[in-house]
C-alpha cells in the first residue's frame, strides 16, 4: 500500500505536522503560511493544497531545525520509514525497455498547472543528470549516470538499490533534491522499470 501524502490544513495560521514516529512535531512559521495561503490559488491540476509541506518537506525546508539533535532524529526516522514503504515490482520483474526509458528521461512533462490528468508524466532525468554520452543537454544538479550499470554490475543488491532510489531517493538521503517518483505517482511502475533498464541494461547507451 503506497503512502499517500497527508496534508494538514492550517488552523488559525499554525501548521502542525503530526507524526506517528514519536518525534515531536515541527511548526512552520504561521506568518509564512499566512502569506502562502493568501497568495496562491488552484490552477488546472495544481491544487492549492500543494502549498502545505508534508513531514519530509517541512524537515528539509528548515536548515536550522534539520541540523538540531531533534531534527537529526526526525531525519533518521523519516528515512527509515521511506525505505520500508517502498514496494518491489508487482510481478517481480525489475527491468523494462531502455529505449522507452531514454524517452521518458528526456521528458519533463506532467503535474504542472498546464498539464492534464491522465497524460503520461516524464521523469525529467536530463534536467539534473548526465545520462547518455550523446545527449549533451543535461543538468548538473545530480551526479552523472554515465556508465551506471557498467560500473556497478547487476547484482541483486544493485538492482534493489537502484529500484529503491528511483522510487524514493529520500529513503537514502532524506533531503535529496530528487523527486519521489513512486511516492507521488510521478512515474508508473512500468515507467520506473524502463528507467531501470536505461541505467542497468548492458545494451543501454548508458553502458556503452
Amino acid at each position: 500500500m503506497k503512502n499517500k501524502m497527508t496534508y494538514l490544513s492550517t488552523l488559525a495560521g499554525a501548521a502542525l505536522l503530526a507524526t506517528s514516529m514519536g518525534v515531536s512535531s515541527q511548526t512552520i512559521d504561521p506568518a509564512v503560511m499566512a502569506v502562502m495561503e493568501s497568495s496562491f490559488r488552484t490552477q488546472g491540476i495544481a491544487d492549492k493544497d500543494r502549498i502545505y509541506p508534508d513531514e519530509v518537506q517541512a524537515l528539509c525546508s528548515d536548515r536550522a531545525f534539520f541540523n538540531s539533535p531533534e531534527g537529526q532524529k526526525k531525519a533518521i526516522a523519516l528515512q527509515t520509514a521511506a525505505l520500508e514503504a517502498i514496494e518491489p515490482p508487482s510481478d517481480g520483474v525489475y527491468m523494462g525497455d531502455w529505449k522507452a526509458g531514454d524517452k521518458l528521461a528526456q521528458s519533463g512533462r506532467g503535474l504542472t498547472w498546464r498539464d492534464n490528468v491522465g497524460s503520461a508524466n516524464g521523469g525529467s532525468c536530463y534536467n539534473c543528470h548526465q545520462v547518455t554520452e550523446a545527449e549533451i543537454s543535461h543538468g548538473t544538479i545530480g551526479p552523472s549516470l554515465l556508465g551506471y550499470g557498467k560500473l556497478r554490475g547487476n547484482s541483486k543488491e544493485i538492482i534493489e538499490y537502484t529500484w529503491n532510489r528511483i522510487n524514493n531517493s529520500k529513503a537514502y538521503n532524506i533531503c535529496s533534491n530528487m523527486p519521489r517518483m513512486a511516492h507521488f505517482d510521478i512515474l508508473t511502475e512500468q515507467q520506473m522499470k524502463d528507467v531501470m533498464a536505461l541505467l542497468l541494461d548492458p545494451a543501454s547507451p548508458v553502458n556503452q
Partner: protein
Amino acid sequence: MKSHLIAAAVALTVSASVPMYAVAQSAAEQLQEYRDMLADGNPAELYEMEGEELWVKPMGPKSASLEQCDLGLGAGVVQGAAAQLPRYFADTDKVQDLESRLMTCMENIQGIAQADVVKASFGKGLRQPMEAIVAYVVGQSKGMPIQVPATHPKEKEMVAIGEKIFFLQGGPMDFSCASCHAVDGQRIRMQDLPNLTEHEGAAAGWGNWPAYRVSNGTFWTMQRRLNDCYRQQRMPFPVFGSDVTVALSMYMANKANGGEMNTPGLKR
C-alpha cells in the same frame, strides 16, 4: 540576403550545427556566441520605447496619465525608481514591488481596477501596456546600483518571510526555490542557475530581470518570471502581485543590494 537577419522569434537550434559527439563544453561556447549575437541589440529596448509613450498617455476610465505616479522617489520620478524597489509605501502601508505599485497608481490615478489587472493574463489585455511601462521604468535605472537596504520594519519582515519561503518545499516534486538556486555552479539542462542566496548570484538574478526572453520571443517582467518558476515547481498559481511574489522579490533584491541594475536584460 547578405545582412544578418535575426528573427528572434524563430528558434535557432544550436544542436543542428554541433556534431553529436561534441562535448558539452563546445556546445556551451556556441550558446555563448549565440547569446553575444543577440546582445548586440536587445529587443527590450523597443518595449521601453513603447512604455515611455504609454507613461504620458491618458488611459483608463479617468483618462489620466501615470505622470503623477509615485514609485518611491516622489510623484512622477522614474529615473532611479526601479533600483530602490521593492520598498515600503506609507500611503498603502505595505511593501510593494514595481508591478504591484503600478497597479496602485493605475487604480488611483487612472481608475483601472486592480482586480481586473490581477485577473488578466501575462502579455494580454490590461497587462500588455503595463509590461511595456515596466520595461521603460526599469530601463530608467539601468547601470545604477541596486538600493534595497530594507531599513523599514515592514521591509525587514518581508525579507525574513521571503527567505523562509525561498526554502519552503512543497508540491509533488518537493521543490523549493532552493532546489535550484541555493548552490554555486549548477545548471538545469544547459541553463546556468544563479545562487540567489549569495550576493553575487542574487545580483545576477535580480539585476537582469525583467528581460526579453528569446526562447519565448517576449518581454517577461519579474512577476511573470516568478509565476513560471512556481509552475515548473509544480506548485499552485501565485496570484499576480501577491505577497509571496513581493516577499521573494524583497529577499532577492536585499541580497543583491549594491549590485548593478542591468535592466531590461536579455535572456535565453
